[in-house]
């Protein structure tokens, strides 16, 4: 255990009836969440707020990134009723904003894109007013797979670059490619109808301020309008060590930097994760204009 956390790396342990209700609902429906698989420190807070980030396509990833606690190995077959179970959870939880992500499934012909599409559709039917945000893998750069997801009109399309390009080999491994991830984002930003395009990355891996700036510039150039920046936290001793705990003031600098570069939605703070407070980050446009969630699919 690391007893040396700075004071800003502190959250509430999951407790209380609201937390238990969320946990039991997820267990009852046999769902996976990235909250659990990634050992997210915010899940006590999020689950108490009756929200969670659903992880589809199982809980075993075909990639093995050095920062991630999600299990790696040969995945189990996809469960055909998983989209319906996710939708049922969204309905029961009365989520106004649902975030759906997945493990990477390089073993599937379309990388699992069709299951993202089915899940979006199922949520639309079960809970028509819900804003749907997807956070997808790179689908090996297959733009047809990206289009399969986008054709179901997610309100927010997210794909995370995770770190600055220099650190890709050591943080993400050889299976990931920074330029490919930017192409995925660019494809989404040029799609019609255009979703809100979002990305996220961690700091604390040893990147410089200049590298953070350049990554933000790349994301803006790719068409991203929303970005989340948070501190990397090592889930277990098996993952890569934290190089630096970036102080909150530096996150404020990154926040200002991102806004100055043109991002419309920015969340930058030590405990920010890509779907943390996702509903609040993206809430404004849906309060002012009819939600894309009601567009015809």
């Amino acid at each position, binding site marked *: *255990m*690391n*007893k040396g*956390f700075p004071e800003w*790396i*502190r*959250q*509430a*342990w*999951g*407790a*209380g009836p609201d*937390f*238990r209700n969320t*946990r039991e609902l*997820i*267990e009852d429906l046999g769902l996976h969440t990235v*909250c*659990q*698989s990634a*050992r997210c*420190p915010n*899940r*006590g807070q999020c*689950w108490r707020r009756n929200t969670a980030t659903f992880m589809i396509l199982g*809980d075993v990833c075909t990639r093995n990134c050095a920062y991630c606690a999600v*299990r790696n190995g040969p995945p189990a077959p996809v469960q055909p009723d998983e989209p319906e179970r996710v939708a049922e959870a969204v309905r029961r939880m009365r989520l106004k904003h649902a975030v759906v992500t997945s493990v990477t499934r390089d073993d599937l012909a379309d990388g699992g894109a069709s299951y993202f599409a089915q899940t979006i559709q199922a949520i639309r039917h079960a809970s028509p007013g819900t804003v749907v945000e997807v956070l997808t893998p790179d689908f090996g750069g297959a733009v047809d797979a990206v289009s399969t997801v986008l054709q179901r009109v997610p309100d927010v399309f997210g794909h995370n670059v995770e770190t600055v390009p220099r650190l890709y080999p050591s943080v993400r491994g050889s299976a990931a490619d920074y330029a490919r991830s930017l192409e995925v984002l660019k494809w989404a930003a040029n799609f019609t109808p255009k979703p809100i395009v979002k990305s996220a990355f961690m700091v604390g891996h040893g990147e410089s301020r200049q590298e953070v700036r350049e990554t933000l510039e790349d994301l803006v150039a790719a068409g991203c309008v929303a970005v989340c920046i948070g501190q990397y*936290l*090592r*889930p*277990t*001793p098996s993952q890569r060590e934290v190089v630096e705990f970036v102080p909150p003031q530096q996150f404020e600098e990154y926040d200002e930097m991102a806004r100055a570069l043109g991002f419309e939605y920015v969340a930058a703070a030590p*405990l920010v994760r890509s779907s943390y407070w996702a509903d609040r980050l993206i809430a404004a446009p849906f309060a002012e204009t009819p939600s894309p969630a009601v567009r015809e699919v």
Partner: protein
Amino acid sequence: MRYEVTLPSMGDDSDESAKVSFWLVKEGEIVMEGDDLIELTTDKAAFTVPSPKTGTLVARTVDEDDDIAAGDVICILEV
């Protein structure tokens, strides 16, 4: 009435364990429901554990640097 406060399960797939960093409440002190009782660390972060009830903390059952797991009794309240 004595009430055993246990460390709730976080719903992890794997073992849920943490190390006690320090207590935030002394024996004999009154705590309100929601007040933080104790700070723990896992591999990933530090956490505070809120009191599930209002009452008087009559006994701590874990000490600093103890490794504890979900379901373990951490203290006893008189409620």
